[in-house]
């Protein structure tokens, strides 16, 4: 028994607890999701049905014991309030718009890059992928701050353009939606490139040769063979860019203008300026649904599409 390696002993122990093989593999991510996703989600959901108060914590409990009766008071008013004021809908739409446009731009830039990396010689691929990932070695915050230096009135881009003589007056780029798009696309581009690359590198060149043999031009081949085959990579990349971009707070706060309306800022205001944790929580819950429903629809479309081919 003592001579068994540690791994086997742990395996035997878990086996006695009824956890082995597949079940064990599934159990770890399940517990992870329970602890780090479901429980916090339920806590936020609970607060969203509460009422704000000047207290610690700053909301009223939703459950109480009265004369031996256990009662739950759910306050749906917070959700109703989100519909009463057009601000919230406008902010959700603003976030979805900025995220959607950024995703499209990231796709248009990321696809050719991923394609090029996948089609380059195998020994160069790792170097090119390394260059995509390298910026992650610097703090995200610093990289966004660096863009301030590029975009500001007497920043690098304006000075360059003025020295060359293309413009006379500095362009106002910082504190505009344009700067937000630049920041979001720049930050999330690797999340677009990596799944696309993983998909495109597996593409069997025999398909392309077959297409060419049958008389298709490269452009036709691309749109009828390469693009449809890489659709799962496109969807994965778009999800990885779109989802975090909707909830983005830091980039619009640093690069955006005062009229850049995104839900992250609204949530911040509810939580910090209004100290209304219940409303802030319901904004967060609604945001989750705004994100989850389209994703489920897409996954459903993906699954049914996959079934046909």
């Amino acid at each position, binding site marked *: 028994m003592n001579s068994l390696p540690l791994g086997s002993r742990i395996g035997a122990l878990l086996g006695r607890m009824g956890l082995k093989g597949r079940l064990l593999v599934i159990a770890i991510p399940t517990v992870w999701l329970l602890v780090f996703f479901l429980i916090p989600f339920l806590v936020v959901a609970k607060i969203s049905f509460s009422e704000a108060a*000047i207290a610690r914590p700053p909301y009223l409990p939703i459950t109480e014991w009265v004369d031996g009766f256990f009662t739950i008071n759910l306050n749906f008013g917070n959700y109703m309030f989100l519909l009463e004021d057009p601000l919230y809908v406008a902010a959700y739409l603003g976030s979805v718009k900025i995220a959607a446009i950024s995703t499209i731009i990231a796709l248009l830039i990321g696809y050719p890059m991923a394609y090029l990396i996948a089609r380059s010689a195998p020994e160069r691929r790792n170097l090119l992928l390394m260059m995509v990932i390298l910026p992650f070695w610097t703090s995200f915050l610093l990289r966004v701050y660096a863009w301030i230096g590029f975009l*500001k009135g007497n920043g690098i881009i304006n000075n360059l353009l003025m020295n060359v003589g293309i413009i006379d007056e500095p362009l106002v780029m910082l504190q505009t939606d344009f700067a937000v798009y630049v920041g979001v696309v720049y930050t999330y581009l690797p999340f677009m490139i990596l799944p696309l690359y993983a998909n495109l590198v597996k593409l069997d060149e025999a398909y392309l040769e077959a297409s060419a043999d049958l008389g298709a031009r490269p452009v036709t081949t691309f749109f009828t063979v390469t693009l449809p085959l890489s659709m799962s990579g496109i969807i994965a990349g778009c999800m990885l860019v779109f989802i975090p971009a909707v909830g983005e707070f830091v980039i619009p706060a640093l690069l955006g203008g005062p009229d850049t309306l995104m839900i992250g800022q609204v949530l911040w205001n509810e939580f910090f*300026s209004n*100290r209304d944790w219940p409303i802030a929580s319901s904004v967060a819950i609604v945001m989750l649904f705004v994100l989850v429903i389209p994703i489920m629809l897409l996954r459903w479309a993906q699954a049914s599409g996959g079934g046909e081919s």
Partner: protein
Amino acid sequence: MRKTTLICSALALTAGAAWAESELNVYHWSDYVAPDTVENFEAKTGITVNYDVFDSNEVLEAKMLTGSSGYDVVVPSIEFLARQAQAGLFAEIDKDKLENYGNLDPDILKIIAVNDPDNTYGVPYMMFSTGIGYNVDMVAERIDADKIGSWDMVFDPDTAAKLADCGLVVLDSPSEIMAPALNYLGLDPNSEDKADLEKASELLMGVRPYIRYFHSSQYINDLANGDICAAVGYSGDVLQARDRAAEAGQGINITYAIPKEGAQIGFDMLAIPDDAPNPENALKFIDYILEPKVAADITNYVYFGNPNTAATEFVDEDVANDPGIYPPQDVRAKMFALKPHSARYDRTLTRAWTTIKTGK
């Protein structure tokens, strides 16, 4: 104070659990003490200080409302302290244990008592005003001399329009901008009346096109670098920008004005959370801050005036005579303090502020 650079945070790492009985956890504004303030306290008392910083009242408040922050001394502004005391977040200050309490200016204690009855929960740390910092040369080129250093620079559309091209900036703080706007209109700066708020919002909407951005610390660098020419900002922050510009030697000349129409006077308060693990050490720290020499050293470094009458003799002459740091009596007469808003009004105000900023 309201700068995002972190200092002394390395000190937080020096804490040892074995010395729990001689520890002190301070949560303070960034850049709001002299470089040796904490060091000297540690040397004097043998207490290990864990020093963390924040840069907005809201962030501190969220921590306090969550509870179990683990801090012994926190520094909310007076109107925030008033509300947080109402929620029962602070322990009463045991003034008998503060040998230096008598150094505090009784007039200032009286002003503060409006928000903190009998000065129960807070000891004033520093005073600040919310006025206008501007680039002397850029502004003089653009607007009439009689408008310079007046709220017209921000609230009068014709004047503000002339500053739009060189950069006019406003704090991203609804109550601290609405109050002078109300005051400019001849209304009560602490009014919670909806009609008043609408008038003030209209005033701000009129100048909105000329405001480059709303931010509570970015203007310090931008003023110093000449990226903007006027900002509604905190006294000490503008004066720090002035010094930085002078050090850079690029010929950028920044000055700070408390507008003649009147401006907000604010107080940051030392307070002890009700669940502070080391309340005795917290009192020792507060008493140390009240020492005349210590308070004067801080003022000399951060350019915020202190409410410590015994400290004035140790304050550098140019600092003590700077009307932006120690406003003269006639200026002070027109200044006003903010009161905490009701939760309902805060929501209305935040909403109006969002409309001003985004047009939605």
